[in-house]
C-alpha cells in the first residue's frame, strides 16, 4: 500500500516537470528573431600606446637564464654564496669553537626551471668569480673571469643517463626533487676549486655558462623564488690539537646572497616600437576605445589583439616566452596598477624568430570592460616571468599606420526580444 502511494506521488511529481525543449524546424517553426553575430576589426581603436622599462631587474627575477646562441645572445648566470662563520663547534655539546682553516670540498646545487631538452650534450661550466659582484656588475666586468678555464664542466645529458643520476667518480648528481618536482643538479668542487678564503669570509663567487652541440639555453631558479643556488661545504677546522686539522664530514649548507644573469648584447635602447619582455623588463600600455554600440549593447564573443612584430624576438629557440595582457585598476601611465586576476588575464606565447602577426586573445578583458563601464579600457602587456630572460619582442605602435595594433572583435548584437 505504501509502495503504491510512493509510486503515485512519484508519477504526479514527474508529470509536473515540464519538458519543453525541442529541435527547431526552421525557419517555419522557429522564432523570427535570430542571434546576429558580427565580426569586425577595430583598426583605429587603439591609441596612446607607449613602452616603459625597469619594472623588474634581472637580479629581482624569479629565474635566471644562461644562453649560448652565437650571433644572438650570450647569457651567463652569476651568484655569490653566503659567508661561513670564522669558527664552528665540533660537537653540539662543545662550549668552545674551533676556527676554520680550509675546505675539503663543496657541493653546489642548482635548480633548473627550464631546460632545452632538444639540445645535445648540454653542458654546464662553472667559473670562479670575484665575490664583489653585485647589481651594478656588467657582462664586460666578468668577461675576464669567464675567459679562463672553468672550475668544472658537467655534461647534463651524460649525468642524467647515469644510474640514479649519480656520477660516483666526480660526486656529481642530477635528479628530480620529490618535493618541488624540479630538476636539481649538484656539482662537486674540491678544495682547489672551492677554496676557503679567509679574506672573503668563505663566500664563493660562481659563474655558470651553458653550452651544447648547438645553440642552447637553460634557466635556473633564483633566490627571489626561494630556490636559488646553494653550497654545501665540507670544511676543515683547527682541532686545537697541535697543527692537526679535523675534517667536518657533515655538509655545512649555505645559500646565495646575490644572484643574477648577465648577457650580451645588452637590451636595445627604447625607440618608437612597443617592447615587451627583456631584462630589465619592459611593459607596453595601450588605451582602447570601444565603440559604444559594442560596449553597451552587445555581447562579446571573442576579442583578439593583433600585433605586428617590428623585429623578430631574438634568442634561443627554446626561449619562447609568455606575454600576459592585463587590464589596470586605474590609468596612471607607467605606474598603472595591474588587475592581477587570472579570470581577467589573457596570454599568448612568443616564439623566438617568428615575424607573424601576433594574436592575443583578450576576450576576458573586453568582456570585463563591457560589464563594468567604470573600468579604464587600458591594456598592459608584460612578460609572464619578467626579467627572467633577455628575450623581448617589439611591435609596431599605433603611430605606424600600416602595421598599427588592432582589435578584432566578434560580438552578438542585442537579440530582438519582444517581437512576435
Amino acid at each position, binding site marked *: 500500500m505504501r509502495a503504491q502511494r510512493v509510486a503515485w506521488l512519484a508519477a504526479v511529481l514527474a508529470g509536473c516537470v515540464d519538458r*519543453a*525543449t525541442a*529541435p527547431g524546424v526552421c525557419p517555419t*517553426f522557429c522564432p523570427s528573431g535570430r542571434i546576429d553575430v558580427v565580426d569586425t576589426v577595430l583598426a583605429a581603436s587603439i591609441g596612446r600606446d607607449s613602452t616603459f622599462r625597469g619594472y623588474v631587474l634581472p637580479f629581482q627575477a624569479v629565474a635566471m637564464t644562461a644562453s649560448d646562441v652565437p650571433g644572438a645572445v650570450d647569457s651567463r648566470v652569476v651568484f655569490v654564496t653566503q659567508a661561513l662563520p670564522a669558527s664552528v663547534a665540533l660537537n653540539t655539546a662543545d662550549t668552545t669553537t674551533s676556527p676554520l682553516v680550509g675546505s675539503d670540498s663543496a657541493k653546489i646545487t642548482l635548480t633548473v626551471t627550464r631546460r632545452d631538452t632538444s639540445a645535445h650534450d648540454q653542458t654546464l661550466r662553472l667559473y670562479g668569480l670575484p665575490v664583489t659582484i653585485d647589481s651594478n656588475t656588467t657582462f664586460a666586468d666578468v668577461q675576464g673571469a669567464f675567459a679562463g678555464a672553468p672550475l668544472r664542466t658537467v655534461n647534463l645529458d651524460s649525468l642524467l643517463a647515469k644510474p640514479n643520476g649519480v656520477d660516483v667518480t666526480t660526486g656529481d648528481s642530477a635528479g628530480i626533487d620529490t618535493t618541488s618536482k624540479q630538476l636539481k643538479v649538484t656539482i662537486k668542487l674540491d678544495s682547489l676549486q672551492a677554496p676557503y678564503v679567509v679574506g672573503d669570509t668563505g663566500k664563493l663567487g660562481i659563474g655558470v655558462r651553458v653550452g651544447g652541440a648547438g645553440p642552447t639555453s637553460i634557466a635556473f631558479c633564483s633566490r627571489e623564488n626561494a630556490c636559488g643556488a646553494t653550497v654545501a661545504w665540507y670544511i676543515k677546522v683547527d682541532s686545537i690539537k697541535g697543527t692537526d686539522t679535523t675534517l667536518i664530514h657533515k655538509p655545512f649548507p649555505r645559500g646565495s646572497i646575490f644572484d643574477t644573469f648577465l648577457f650580451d648584447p645588452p637590451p636595445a635602447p627604447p625607440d618608437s616600437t612597443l617592447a615587451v619582455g627583456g631584462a630589465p623588463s619592459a611593459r607596453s600600455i595601450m588605451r582602447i576605445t570601444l565603440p559604444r554600440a559594442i560596449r553597451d549593447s552587445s555581447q562579446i564573443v571573442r576579442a583578439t589583439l593583433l600585433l605586428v612584430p617590428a623585429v623578430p624576438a631574438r634568442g634561443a629557440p627554446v626561449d619562447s616566452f609568455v606575454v600576459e595582457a592585463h587590464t589596470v585598476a586605474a590609468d596612471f601611465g607607467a605606474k598603472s596598477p595591474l588587475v592581477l586576476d587570472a579570470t581577467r588575464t589573457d596570454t599568448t606565447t612568443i616564439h623566438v624568430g617568428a615575424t607573424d602577426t601576433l594574436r592575443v586573445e583578450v576576450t576576458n578583458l573586453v568582456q570585463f570592460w563591457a560589464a563594468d563601464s567604470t573600468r579604464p579600457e587600458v591594456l598592459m602587456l608584460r612578460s609572464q616571468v619578467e626579467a627572467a630572460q633577455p628575450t623581448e619582442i617589439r611591435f609596431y605602435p599605433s603611430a605606424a599606420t600600416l602595421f598599427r595594433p588592432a582589435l578584432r572583435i566578434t560580438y552578438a548584437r542585442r537579440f530582438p*526580444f519582444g*517581437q*512576435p
Partner: protein
Amino acid sequence: MLSACPPVRLSAQDSQFGIRGLGTPGRFETVRVRSTGGAFGPFDALSPLTEASLGDLQGLAATAMGGTSYRDVDAAAGATTSLRATRFPVMVLAGPVFGRLVLSGGFTTYLDRTWDVTLRDSLLVRGTMLPYVDELSSDGGVTDLRFAAAWRVSRRLALGAAVHVLSGSTREAAARTFDDTTYHALKQSDETRYDGLGVSGSLLIDPLPELRLSLFARSDNRLRARLGDVVTAQTDLPNTFGGGLRWAPSPSVRLAGTVTRRTWADAGPGAFNTVNWSAGLEVGAGFSPLRVGVRGGQLPFGPGATAATEVGFAAGTGRAFARGRAIVDGSLEHLRRTGAGLSERVWSFLLGFTVRP
C-alpha cells in the same frame, strides 16, 4: 494533485504552431466543457467563454483546473520529439449579488508563449565555418482577466457582458554555444510585458424548454509588447463571433454543438482567420455524469498558405461530493494538429475542482 505541482504558470497547451505567431490561443473552458470537446462552452456558467450562462448560477461557485499534456511533435524531416507541460489555465469565481444579477471574476490563458527550441547550424567567422547550437526560449504568456456580469431577464432570456484585461509577460532567452570554445558562449535574456483590452457580450435564448441557443461576440483591441518602457510590437487582436445550440431531450441527456469564428488574420502576415466547431454529449444528471465530445477547426498561426488544422476527441466524467457542494471533474483529451511541415499529437489529462459553498 494540483497542489503538488509547483510551477504555477497561467498557461494553456502549447504548440509549435504558435512559435512564429503570437502564441497558442487558450481555451476558455472548464474541465467539464473540455470533456465534451468544448461543445458545452456557451452553456457552462463557470466557463469563461460566455457571460450570459452565469445567469443560471444560484449561489457562489468557484472552479479551477489543471492539466498535463504529453505532446509528440513530428517534423517533416522525420524526427519526433516528445514534450511535456503542466498548466493551470482557468480559475473563476462567480455568484449572484442583487437578485438576478450575477457577477464573476477570474482568469484564463489568452495566449501561451512557452516554448524552447534548439538549432544546430554554422556560420562563417574569420574565414572558417563555425558550428554552433542555439537555444531560443520563451516562458510565459498572456492572461485574460475577466470581470463579467449576467442578468437573467426572463425565464427564456439571459444577457451577459464582460470586460477583459489582457496582461502577462514572457521571460525570453537566446543562447548560443560554439563548438570552438575560443568563442565564448553567449546568452541574452529579457522580459517582455504584454497588455491589451477586450469586451464581450452574449445572450441565451430558450425557444423551447429543451432547446437553448447561445450567441456570443467579443472584440479585443490590440496586444502591446513592451521591453521596459519601450513598445516593441503592437498587434491587432481578433474579433470573435460564435453560437451554440443545446438540446436536452431528457433530464439526463444533453447534446450540444458550438461554432466559433475568430478573425486572427488581423494579427498580420502568417495569421489566419479560424473557424472551430465542436459537438458533445453529456449523459447523467446525477453525481457522476459521462461526457464525450469531438472538436475540429483551424489554428491561427502557422506556415504555408492555409491554416493548420486541429481535430480531437475527449471524454470525461465528474464526481460530486458533499451533496453537490464539491465537484471533481476529470478528462482525457486527444488532439492532432497538422500543418505544412509539422504535425503534433497531444494527450492531455485534465483535472478540475468546483466548489459551491
